[in-house]
């Protein structure tokens, strides 16, 4: 049923929500109750002055009764239907549901948003609690101090004849411990409060690098103009406020050197020209541009207008670069899902893998992944290769099908029958 045809349902719903009888509303707008009944059951079209009068009588904007007002709501309901695995036929009735039951539709849409937000929080906190050494140490300190206070306070309260020297000593201990407890709690709150400046919360050099790259939108125009001055990269990393540790500066300099090298192989302007000709398919582009696939994938990720994600891992499978994309989580501290095409590419040097995947979770959106690996060492006779894998992620066009299910990391993945599972999930719907 089209949304326009459901104006009557919305009128009926608003009337009932407002506690108005059909006859009363009909009288107020100057029509018969039977005619209003036909309108409310979508058997008569409505518009013009009558629509305005009804909207005024119901105390709502006319748009709230017509199709445009709930486009976002209907889109959210359709997403919820997709996530719940409803049939396409059932999902298409989101319009009807929103029209007939706007209050319930709002509840469902808001609940879905809340669930998504909570899932994001669970992911972040789970990661942090499990793998953040600073937080673990801080909580340990907090509990230890609390234990000292509890024991000492109990001694003071329960020992009837406590000698004065012991009493004074325990009072001093409690005073000291309570100050420590206060300081520890304050430090934890400050640490968890990532509000104003997320770079302060960076718990690893890799996070510092990620903040640095994000601050520049992964785009460095000054490195695209041929070979830069020898000191330019050092100057960039030393002056970046996001890069606090030496390790982060070292890693960021490596990323920037890679940008310079890739820019020398393929100019973004040439890439854009080729894309206008053959589209964004990496294989088609590599044939036109005669560019090595790893460089091409990195250059595609450097185009802001493409909105692509990029993940690079070394031979151990450790992620050494990430350009995040909405809907595909790359864990910061935990090991990634081994089902990603990135890791398949690591084991198949020279092969370009093209695979559509859906990362299970709050978005469950399909992505077209292109992955390959390369030896990053200069070839030498009989020298073992040092492989590095690159994976480009492009959002799949809507309605072109789902992909293979993958996760982000086992702890927060709901795929309970996954053969690649390493550990149970903390999500209730998981293991």
């Amino acid at each position, binding site marked *: 049923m089209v949304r326009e045809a459901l104006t009557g349902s919305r009128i009926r719903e608003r009337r009932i929500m407002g506690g108005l009888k059909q006859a009363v509303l009909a009288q107020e707008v100057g029509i018969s109750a039977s005619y209003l009944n036909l309108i409310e059951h979508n058997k008569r079209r409505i518009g013009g002055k009558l629509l305005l009068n009804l909207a005024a009588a119901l105390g709502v904007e006319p748009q709230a009764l017509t199709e445009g007002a709930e486009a976002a709501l209907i889109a959210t309901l359709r997403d919820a239907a997709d996530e719940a695995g409803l049939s396409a036929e059932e999902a298409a009735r989101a319009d009807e549901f929103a029209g007939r039951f706007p209050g319930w539709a709002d509840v469902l849409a808001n609940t879905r948003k809340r669930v998504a937000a909570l899932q994001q929080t669970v992911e972040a906190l789970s990661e942090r609690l499990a793998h953040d050494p600073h937080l673990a140490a801080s909580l*340990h300190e907090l*509990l230890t101090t*609390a234990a000292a206070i*509890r*024991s000492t306070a109990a*001694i003071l309260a329960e020992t009837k004849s406590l000698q004065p020297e012991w009493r004074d000593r*325990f009072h001093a201990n409690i005073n000291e411990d309570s100050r420590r407890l206060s300081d520890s709690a304050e430090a934890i709150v400050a640490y968890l409060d990532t509000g104003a400046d997320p770079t302060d919360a960076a718990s690893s050099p890799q996070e510092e690098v990620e903040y640095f790259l994000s601050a520049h939108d992964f785009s460095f125009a000054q490195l695209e103009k041929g070979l830069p001055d020898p000191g330019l990269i050092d100057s960039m990393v030393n002056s970046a406020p996001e890069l606090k540790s030496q390790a982060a500066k070292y890693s960021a300099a490596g990323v920037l050197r890679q940008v310079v090298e890739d820019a020398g192989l393929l100019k973004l302007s040439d890439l854009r020209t080729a894309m206008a000709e053959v589209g964004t398919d990496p294989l088609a582009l590599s044939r036109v541009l005669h560019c090595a696939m790893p460089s091409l994938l990195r250059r595609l990720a450097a185009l802001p207008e493409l909105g692509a994600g990029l993940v690079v891992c070394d031979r151990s499978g450790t992620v050494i670069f990430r350009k995040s994309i909405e809907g595909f989580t790359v864990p910061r501290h935990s090991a990634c899902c081994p089902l990603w095409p990135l890791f398949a590419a690591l084991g198949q040097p020279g092969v370009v893998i093209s695979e559509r995947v859906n990362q299970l979770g709050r978005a469950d959106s399909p992505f077209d992944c292109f992955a390959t690996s390369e030896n990053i060492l200069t070839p030498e006779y009989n020298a073992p290769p040092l492989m590095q894998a690159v994976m480009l992620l492009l959002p799949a066009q809507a309605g072109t099908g789902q992909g293979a299910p993958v996760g982000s990391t086992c702890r927060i993945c709901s795929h309970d029958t996954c053969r690649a599972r390493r550990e149970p999930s903390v999500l209730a719907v998981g293991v």
Partner: protein
Amino acid sequence: MGKHVVLVEDEVNIAEAIRFLLSNEGWRVEMLANGTNAVEVIRNAAPDLVMLDVMLPGRSGFEILSDLRADPDLADLPILMLTARGQARDREMAERAGVSRFMTKPFSNAEMLDAVRDLTS
């Protein structure tokens, strides 16, 4: 002479509170603030009970526990572990290593004293 306990705890104020409580119960309390020489001290002292923190300077409580259990003479020595690391995997690790009792901080004095009595009765 009362029973003898070696308390390995780097948190001075907790150690002091435990020493007070056990002394009142007639225990002789020997305190160590780090794990470096703990195994050697315990082996020489042959106490009736060891109370062991997990996160210690020098050596961790788990390492000390493993070393003590590896010594046939100390295989039956009651060892009470006191730790703020109360996760299931820490408890499992301690049980695998042969701990007699595992208590998580913060604990009540009564709980701690009950555990000591149970282990040494």
